[in-house]
């Protein structure tokens, strides 16, 4: 029930968020996160490489995990690929639930897991040079805290 998309085109976060409660009276909470390309450090562009056969299925598995853990009424995850500029949206996570606790928790969970389990790689351009972004220990730690206690 959480839709996932991988696309080069920009997305309309407002429209995606609105769609999660449109025409419904059971949704009491919609929480969203939009990730954007920051232009600090002189960054001029960011390119997202992905694994076509695995990126969307991996995102779908992450989404199914969220839907299994929390009582969600819907959701949308969109991840862009290709060459993006500072200020461009990269990723959207939006979830709907009856109450806010599930919506907040699921949205954070989805982002923490996207950061560590979705097969995409960022390459930053600055000052005419390009370098691959390194994975951060903080992201692994954030994802680990969602591991089931038993």
């Amino acid at each position, binding site marked *: 029930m959480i839709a996932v998309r991988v696309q080069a085109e920009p997305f309309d976060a407002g429209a995606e968020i609105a769609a999660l409660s449109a025409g419904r009276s059971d949704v009491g909470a919609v929480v969203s996160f939009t*990730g954007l390309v920051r232009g600090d450090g002189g960054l001029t562009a960011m390119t*997202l*490489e*992905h*694994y076509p*056969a*695995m*990126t969307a*299925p*991996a995102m779908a598995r992450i989404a199914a995990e969220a839907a299994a853990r929390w009582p969600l009424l819907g959701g949308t995850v969109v*991840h862009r690929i290709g060459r993006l500029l500072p200020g461009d949206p*990269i*990723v959207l996570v939006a979830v709907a639930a009856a109450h806010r606790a599930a919506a907040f928790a699921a949205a954070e969970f989805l*982002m923490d897991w*996207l*950061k*560590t*389990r*979705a*097969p*995409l*790689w*960022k*390459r930053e351009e600055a000052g005419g040079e390009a370098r*691959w*972004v*390194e*994975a951060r220990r903080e*992201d692994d730690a954030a994802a680990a805290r969602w591991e089931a206690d038993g």
Partner: protein
Amino acid sequence: MIDLLYFARVREAIGVDGEVLPLPAGVAAVGDLLAWLATRSPRHAAALADRAAIRVAVNQAFAGDEAGVGDGDEVAVFPPVTGG
């Protein structure tokens, strides 16, 4: 044959985005496959030198060193992911 796919820094280091290779006799797990792959050329060795910075997916699912690899599998080798 196994269908190897390389991404990001791994692709740059090896110099190709993938290759189809016969699975060597005696190689049945991811760890053994990586060890064998590193012997194919100096570029393969350099790409796989830091095993802590290598991740593998077999048939589009993350796989550790102990995971099995068999004929016909798609094996992707890449750095830790940085999406999101």
